[in-house]
């Protein structure tokens, strides 16, 4: 909790300083616009990051195919809507596809990699991402498309910017997920088992934690989160599988901010990244390269986390 408070202060301070510096001589209303606009994108980064962390904690796999799973989900949901299916059924089907894809990989492929080091596990998921991206781009040619939700139509003004219900929904779901999963980890048996696995897999298995069951749940839950993130990316960013697939990299940046562990920090990190990226539009020097913001922030966080540490020891990840 103390850690979160410190991080929050650093984030708010940093963003305020950046806003003051870049926004010098510009109307306050304009800065407000960019601030709110950035929160929307930031919550998407956070959402993806949350899914990645949930899975990584329980299974030790950093899933680079998260974006591809999301892309498959949103494209199939779009297709079902085109085929005149009731929209809610299409959305559910999209989420279900995310669940199935993630579970499929988790149950069929991941066990073969169980004893490999984390980097190899992560790299293997890239293979899955390429398979999914190839299939999705084969099935859907590159026509311009749009994935709409009923929540797009109503909006409320915040600091002068119209914010649609969809954007609010993303922020709400991200916060809700952080709270819900944190409570789950603290107060349920499966949560306890997940924490045990995250701490030490070998000892957990020896004391009888049902690893397979815990891992299956983690793959399933993260699959649904990736599916949902994909639907939101498709609605709020672009309905292009190629773009959605590789948005996993900024999502990893958000996950790094939480040390691949702490969900509240992932949320905070993701939001901060979105806001900084958006605020950089005010700078003539940096606006062409503002998507770099998540990566720079993630590197700074990693450096800060490890300050004072001089040596690395085996297993000291």
């Amino acid at each position, binding site marked *: 909790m103390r850690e979160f408070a410190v991080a929050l202060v650093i984030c708010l301070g940093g963003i305020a300083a950046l806003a003051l510096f870049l926004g010098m001589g510009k109307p306050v209303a304009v800065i407000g616009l960019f601030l709110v606009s950035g929160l929307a994108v930031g919550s998407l980064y956070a959402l993806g990051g949350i899914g990645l962390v949930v899975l990584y904690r329980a299974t030790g796999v*950093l899933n*680079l195919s998260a974006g591809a799973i999301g892309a498959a989900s949103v494209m199939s949901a779009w297709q079902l809507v085109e085929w005149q299916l009731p929209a809610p059924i299409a959305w559910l089907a999209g989420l279900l596809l995310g669940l199935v894809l993630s579970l499929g990989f988790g149950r069929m*492929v991941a066990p*073969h*990699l169980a004893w*490999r*080091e*984390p*980097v*190899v596990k*992560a*790299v*293997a998921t*890239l*293979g*899955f*991402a*390429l*398979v*999914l*991206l*190839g*299939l999705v*781009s*084969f099935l859907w040619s590159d026509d311009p498309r749009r994935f709409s939700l009923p929540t797009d139509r109503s909006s409320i003004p915040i600091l002068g910017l119209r914010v649609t219900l969809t954007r609010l929904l993303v922020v709400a779901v991200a916060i809700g997920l952080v709270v819900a999963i944190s409570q789950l980890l603290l107060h349920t048996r499966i949560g306890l088992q997940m924490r045990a696995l995250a701490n030490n897999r070998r000892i957990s298995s020896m004391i009888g934690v049902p690893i397979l069951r815990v891992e299956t749940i983690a793959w399933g839950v993260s699959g649904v989160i990736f599916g949902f993130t994909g639907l939101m990316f498709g609605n709020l960013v672009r309905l292009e599988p190629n773009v959605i697939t*590789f948005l996993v*990299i*900024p999502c*990893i*940046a958000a996950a*790094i901010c939480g040390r*691949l562990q702490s969900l509240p920090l992932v949320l905070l990190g993701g939001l901060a990244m979105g806001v900084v990226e958006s605020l950089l539009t005010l700078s003539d020097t940096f606006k*062409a*390269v503002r*998507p*770099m913001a*998540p*990566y*720079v922030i*993630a*590197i700074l966080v*990693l*450096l800060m986390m*490890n300050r004072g*540490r*001089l*040596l*690395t*020891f*085996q297993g*000291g*990840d």
Partner: protein
Amino acid sequence: MPTLPLRSWQVGFFLAALLFLLLPVVLGGQWMRIFTSTACFTLAAAGAGFIYARLGMVSLTQVGLMGLGGWITLRLNHSTALPFEANLAIAAIGTAVLGMALALPALRMRGLYLALVTLMVAGGLEILFTAYQFPNGGAGFWGVGTSFAAEMRRPALAKTDAAYLRYCILLVVIGFVLIEWHLRAKPGRAWALIRRSEAAALASGVNVTLYKTWAFGLSGLLAGLGGGLLAGSLGLLDASTFRASESVLLFALVIVGGARSWLGIVLAAVLFRVAPGLLNNWGVDADLALVFFGAALLHAVITAPEGIAGQIIGLLSRLRRRNRGQA
């Protein structure tokens, strides 16, 4: 039946000499270019492979560093009258310096976290390259003009595509020798100790900071060399070659090929450039080719933990043992 005392490096030299002599003669224009690209990526893969195999450190930004090397080469080519070799050397050293800067976080991290730092760098480089592209003889620091690119000088010895392919093969061999020389000399012993235990290495008087930084520098040097050579081959570069996902893919293929031996590295580069060329030549749909490629990658990572090179070497030594048994 007596067996030849074939050592891995002897086979390597023999193979390189064979490729050096034969490839430019038998290949057409298209395949000449494919193999030249393959040679360039072999250098980058060698850098990624050796720090992974010897130090357990993962670099997911090798292709991004190649882009940097290529950028410096092109920048110098269009703004100075220096010969290609000088530009290439400066580019390789410049990239090595950035590689060393990358080692700063590496000193304190290992495993996945280190890999992620390098992935973040790759992501950042991708954005930079897209926004500023590569110099093509235009004005200003970024040097990007809108008309067709100015002439790219090639080495005096290698003006034609065939000679340039030979030139690249030669540099690949030099790259491998450079790594091997490091491994057999003092740095190699230091790396081996560091890999086992940094505390032990420190206790026995090894300058851990220096040698880890040096390893990253060497890896960057090779990537920069590869990037500069690629620039010389194509005459200009495009940001889409150096995406972060390409860096991850190259590392994945190094694991598939086998990071411990030169054969694995060459296989990785062949899978990276020759395989897509073949699929494209056979008219396989680009999207479906991606599916095959991804599936093959998954399959190889799962079934060949020591890489394909590991399997080949294992098979050969089993054969040799059987032969010896019969003799």
